[in-house]
C-alpha cells in the first residue's frame, strides 16, 4: 500500500478548511426496473476527506456517484452539499468536478482547451483561462502537453488531463469514477499517488468509486463498503481490515477465514481447538458463531503428527499462502513467511496455531456455515484479493 506524501499530509488541514464541502446521502433509493441499485443509502463525507465507495459489481457505488454528480435522479432520498439540498439541481450547476473511467476528453480539443473548457463555458477571459489551464497542466505533471490532442497522449496522460479539467473550476467536491481501471498497473500506481497528493494539497472533498480494494484502502481516509445498494460498513481502512462489522465486509476486504466457533462465555470463543478472546460485541442470542481470522494470524508448522493436511501452497513472494484441511473445521488459509514454508508441500501434515489475540465473531448465517461454505467464502475473498493485486 502506498502512502501520500508527508508534504501533502502537512498541507491538508489548512487546504481542507479552504475548499472542501460536506457531502451527505440521506436515504437514497434508486431502482432500474426490478433491479434496486441503491436501497436507502445513508452516508456522509467530511470536508476535505477522500471517501472510497467500494463494493462488487452492481452494488450501487457508481449509481451513488452519478446521483451526486446529477446524472441520475434518486427515486427517494436526498443529496446534501454543505447542508444544501442539491437533489434537484441540474448536473451543470452542481459545482462538482468529475473524472470518468473512460478518459472522456473532448477529442476535438487540445489538452489545454480540454482543461479550459469549463472556464470557457463560464466565459472566463481567454488569457486567464489559458493561464489557469497551463497552471493545472503543470500541477498534474504535463506542462508541455498543452497542444496535444487526446489521441496523441497515453491513457495515463489523458487521465491526468481529465483530472486537471475536473479541478479547473475549483469544485467543492471531486468525483472519481474508477479513474484508474483502464490503465496498466504501473501507471495506475503512480496516478493514484498523484490523485491523492493533489486531493490532499487542494483540500477538496473527494468521492472515489472503485472495485479495487487495494486502491481504496491505500488512498482513502475512509472506505464505504456497499453491498446490494446498502452500506455495509464505513470506516478507516485499518479499522475496516482489522474489525469488519459484517460477514460481507470480512469476506470482501482481503482474505478472511470464517471458521465455525462456539461461544464459551466470559467473552471467549472456542475455535479450531483453541480458546480466543472475542473482540467487540459478543452475540447473546446464539452460541454458534463464525470466527473471522486473517491468514496472517494463522501459524502453520510442519509436524509428522499434525492434525491438519496441506491441500495447496501458493508462493506469493514474501509469503506463501497455504490452504490446510483441518478435520471438523474445514479449510484454513494461512500466510506463512516463504522462508518458513519450505516443508509445506501439499499432503504434508501440519499443526495449526491461531494468534492469541481478540477475534471478531459474527452469528452463523445458518446452520449451513459449514466448513465447505467457509472455505468457499475464503476462496472467493482470496480471488478478490488476487484480482485487486493484478
Amino acid at each position: 500500500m502506498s502512502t501520500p506524501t508527508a508534504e501533502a499530509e502537512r498541507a491538508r488541514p489548512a487546504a481542507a478548511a479552504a475548499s472542501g464541502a460536506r457531502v451527505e446521502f440521506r436515504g437514497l433509493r434508486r431502482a432500474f426496473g426490478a433491479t434496486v441499485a441503491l436501497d436507502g443509502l445513508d452516508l456522509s463525507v467530511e470536508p476535505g476527506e477522500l471517501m472510497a465507495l467500494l463494493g462488487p459489481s452492481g452494488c450501487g457505488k457508481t449509481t451513488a456517484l452519478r446521483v451526486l454528480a446529477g446524472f441520475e435522479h434518486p427515486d427517494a432520498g436526498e443529496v446534501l452539499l454543505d447542508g444544501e439540498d442539491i437533489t434537484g439541481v441540474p448536473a451543470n450547476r452542481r459545482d462538482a468536478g468529475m473524472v470518468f473511467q473512460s478518459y472522456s476528453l473532448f477529442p476535438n480539443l487540445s489538452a489545454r482547451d480540454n482543461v479550459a473548457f469549463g472556464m470557457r463555458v463560464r466565459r472566463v477571459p481567454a488569457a486567464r483561462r489559458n493561464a489557469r489551464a497551463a497552471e493545472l497542466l503543470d500541477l498534474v505533471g504535463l506542462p508541455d502537453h498543452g497542444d496535444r490532442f487526446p489521441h496523441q497522449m497515453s491513457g495515463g496522460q489523458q487521465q491526468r488531463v481529465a483530472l486537471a479539467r475536473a479541478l479547473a473550476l475549483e469544485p467543492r467536491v471531486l468525483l472519481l469514477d474508477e479513474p484508474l481501471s483502464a490503465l496498466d498497473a504501473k501507471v495506475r500506481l503512480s496516478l493514484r499517488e498523484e490523485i491523492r497528493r493533489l486531493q490532499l494539497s487542494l483540500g477538496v472533498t473527494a468521492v472515489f468509486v472503485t472495485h479495487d480494494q487495494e486502491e481504496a484502502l491505500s488512498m482513502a481516509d475512509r472506505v464505504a463498503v456497499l453491498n446490494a445498494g446498502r452500506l455495509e460498513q464505513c470506516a478507516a481502512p485499518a479499522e475496516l481490515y482489522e474489525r469488519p462489522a459484517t460477514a460481507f465486509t470480512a469476506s470482501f476486504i482481503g482474505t478472511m477465514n470464517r471458521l465455525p466457533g462456539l461461544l464459551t462465555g466470559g467473552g471467549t470463543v472456542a475455535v479450531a481447538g483453541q480458546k480466543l478472546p472475542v473482540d467487540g460485541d459478543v452475540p447473546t442470542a446464539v452460541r454458534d458463531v463464525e470466527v473471522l481470522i486473517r491468514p496472517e494470524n494463522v501459524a502453520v508448522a510442519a509436524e509428522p503428527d499434525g492434525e491438519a493436511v496441506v491441500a495447496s501452497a501458493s508462493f506469493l513472494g514474501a509469503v506463501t499462502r497455504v490452504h490446510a484441511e483441518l478435520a471438523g473445521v474445514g479449510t484454513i488459509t494461512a500466510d506463512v513467511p516463504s522462508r518458513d514454508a519450505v516443508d509445506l508441500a501439499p499432503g504434508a501434515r501440519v499443526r495449526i496455531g491461531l494468534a492469541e489475540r481478540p477475534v471478531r465473531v459474527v452469528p452463523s448465517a445458518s446452520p449451513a456455515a459449514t466448513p465447505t461454505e467457509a472455505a468457499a467464502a475464503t476462496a472467493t475473498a482470496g480471488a478478490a484479493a488476487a484480482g485487486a493485486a493484478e
Partner: protein
Amino acid sequence: MAAMTTSTIDRPARAAATRRRGRPRIWRGAVLALAACYFLIPLAASFVFTVHTPGQGVSFEAYTALLAADGFTDSLLLSLSLAAATIALALLLAVPALVAVRLGAPRLRPVVEVMCMLPLVVPPIALVTGVSTVLRWGPDQLSRTPLYQTFLAVQNEEFPLVLVLAYTVLALPFVYRSLDTGLRAVDVPTLVEAARNCGASWPYVVVRVLLPNLRAALAGAAFLTLALVLGEFTIASLLGFEPFAVWIVTISGSQARMSVAVSVLSLLITWALLLLLSRAGTAAATAAPSRDSSRTSRKEP
C-alpha cells in the same frame, strides 16, 4: 558451405514467394483499370462529343455558350439552394433525434432506423404521386383556411419548398446511416456528461461538443444529400419544377451537344463540391479520431 546450401535452397522459395506477392498486385491493377474504364470511357466519350465535330475539328463552343444559355444559371442556383436547404433540414431533424435516442431511449433505435430507412423501399414515383395528390386536393379543400396560402407558398416556382420536403425524406436513409456511424464512433453519453459536469448547458453541449466531434459524419451526410439533390429528376419533373437535372433533359432535345456539355460540367461541379465536403470531413476526422483510436494507449514517458 552451409550458408551457400541454405541460400541455394531458399532462392526458388523466395522467387515463388515474390511471384505470389506479385499476383495480387496484377489483379488489383487489372480490377482498378477495369473500373477506371467503366467510369472514364463514357466520360471521355461525352467530352469528345461536346468538343469535336466530324469534319469541323475541335471547338469549345458548347461550353462557352453555357453561361449564356437560357435557364442554365437559374436552374443551377435553384438546385444548389434546394440542396443547401435539404441538407440543413435533414440535419436539423436527424441530429437532435438521433442524439436524443442515443442518450435517452436507446431501445427506440431500431424503430428510428426502420423509419429513416423506409424511403429506400418507397420508389420516388410513388412518393411524387402521393405528394401531387395532396397538392391537388389541398387548395380545393382548404381554400377558405390560412393553410391555402401555405399550399401556394410551398409550390413557389422560385423556391419550391415542397421539393425540399420531398428531398429531405429521400435523403433520410443516407443521413441516418452517416450520422449513426458517426455517433457510434464517439462515446456520446460520456462526452455529454463530461461537458455537463463542466457546467455546459444542453445547447452548448450540442454545439460545442457533439457537432465538432460529428463533423466527419455531418460532412458525409451533407455529401450524400448534395449528390442526391443535384441528380434528382423524377419528383421535380413530375411536380413541374425545373432544377438543374430537369433543365438538362429539357435542353437535350434541342441542343444535344450543349446538354452533354452541361452533364459533364455538372459532374465536375458535383465532384468539386463533394471533394470540398470530403476534405472538411477528413480534416475533422484527423482532429477528432474515433473512440477506438482515442483510447490507444501509448507508453507513459
